[in-house]
């Protein structure tokens, strides 16, 4: 019996997840709405002073993105575990890490990409200068896949538990601190007119490492959490 070629298996997983997400478009909008609402809370909480909002804009947008992604992460494998398709994936002859990598990619496209699209709008609401916007977008383009990858490992670990939402925050927070520091550092440096390439390069290096290691770790974590 011959197996499906690797590329077409990857494409099938990706297409399936994207189709499922598209059928439930309302779920894609949720993180975006959430981020929008959190950002509007800042001027209410801190006062509408332009200079203050401008100073916190980069960090506030990054933290909001992180929280929105955290909420969406919880659902990454849930429906697949409930309907048994994840177990089919684990039994399939193709390497599990690669299949999970495709699932993570699909998840990133459906949750992080819409967030990145509205990020300049959110930052604009807090008066971030237009010149800094590209740096913010670069930082998000590199840091959100990192969060997706690390989050996927942790979600996989909690896959066998009932209550995982709060626990996920507790586990992800320590690991994402460096990501937030470098991403916010790049935006802050750009805002002050300093060179901002170094923190972006660090994020890129971390992303490359996570791209290689995280799917493998994710597969190992799922095996631990599900096979018992």
């Amino acid at each position, binding site marked *: 019996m011959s197996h499906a070629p690797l590329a077409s298996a990857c494409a099938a997983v990706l297409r399936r997840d994207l189709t499922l997400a598209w059928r439930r478009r309302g779920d894609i909008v949720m993180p975006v709405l959430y981020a929008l609402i959190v950002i509007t809370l800042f001027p209410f909480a801190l006062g509408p002073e332009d200079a203050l909002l401008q100073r916190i804009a980069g960090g506030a947008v990054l933290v909001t993105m992180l929280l929105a992604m955290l909420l969406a992460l919880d659902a990454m494998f849930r429906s697949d575990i409930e309907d048994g398709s994840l177990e089919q994936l684990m039994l399939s002859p193709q390497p599990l890490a690669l299949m999970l990598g495709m699932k993570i990619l699909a998840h990133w496209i459906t949750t992080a990409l819409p967030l990145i699209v509205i990020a300049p709008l959110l930052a604009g609401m807090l008066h971030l200068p237009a010149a800094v916007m590209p740096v913010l977008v670069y930082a998000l383009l590199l840091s959100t896949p990192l969060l997706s990858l690390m989050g996927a490992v942790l979600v996989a670990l909690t896959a066998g538990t009932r209550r995982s939402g709060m*626990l996920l925050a507790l*586990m992800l927070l*320590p690991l994402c601190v460096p990501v937030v520091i470098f991403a916010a550092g790049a935006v802050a440096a750009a805002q002050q007119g300093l060179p901002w390439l170094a923190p972006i390069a660090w994020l890129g290096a971390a992303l490359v490492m996570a791209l290689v290691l995280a799917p493998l*770790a994710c597969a190992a974590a799922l095996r631990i*959490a599900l096979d018992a």
Partner: protein
Amino acid sequence: MANWIPLWVHKLSSPPNFYRFAGIVRPWALALALISGAIALYGGLVLAPADYQQGDAYRIIFIHVPCAWMGLFIYGLMAVASFISLVWRIKLAEVVAMESAPIGAAFTFITLVTGSLWGKPMWGTWWTWDARLTSELVLLFLYLGVIGLYHSFEDRRQGARAAAFLAIIGIINVPIVHFSVNWWNTLHQGSTVRILGPSKISGDMLWPLLTMMAATKFYYIASLFGRVRTDLLSMESGKEWVKQIAEREGKA
């Protein structure tokens, strides 16, 4: 290479043998911890001279620094035990890793509390977002994440394996905590005790510090062995050796 060392280790890793071994070692470790702790406190609080800059306030380091070392040391040990438990599926390694986590979290918590108690008179603030302080707080969160994940599974061995995996992932933070003082030049002072080369600390202050470090190590052993013994009993509660112990204790 003598053959008895691997043999001894191998035998020790069986729960009844370790239960007996830990029962013998534990009172000694506890006694050593109390004695060396008392000596270190006397040496640190009474014998050591006051610091030329900080006066008597620096004496908190005799608690603060050994606890900080222990926070990192236990994390490393927990990660090693986790690795062993994942690779070789040794039950004892799982128990050691999971029972180390609360002790390490407690040491980290003490480090944070004593640090902020010292920070108020010295730096004029309870807390600052300094690199070392923040990374130490992150270390506490890592411990809490491991403990939380362990307890969120219904099957304890499955929980232990998942939490062990998390502990290994979290190890990337340990070098960040350790080197944070050197990498980011912020409020927290650099390290003064060196393993290689002479320490930048007076001998009168150094020996109580090292004695206290030994005391915390002994305390860790005593505490860990006590916890592991209890855990082994409850994990193996259906086994013959636990029944024998229960019957013996019941008669006595």
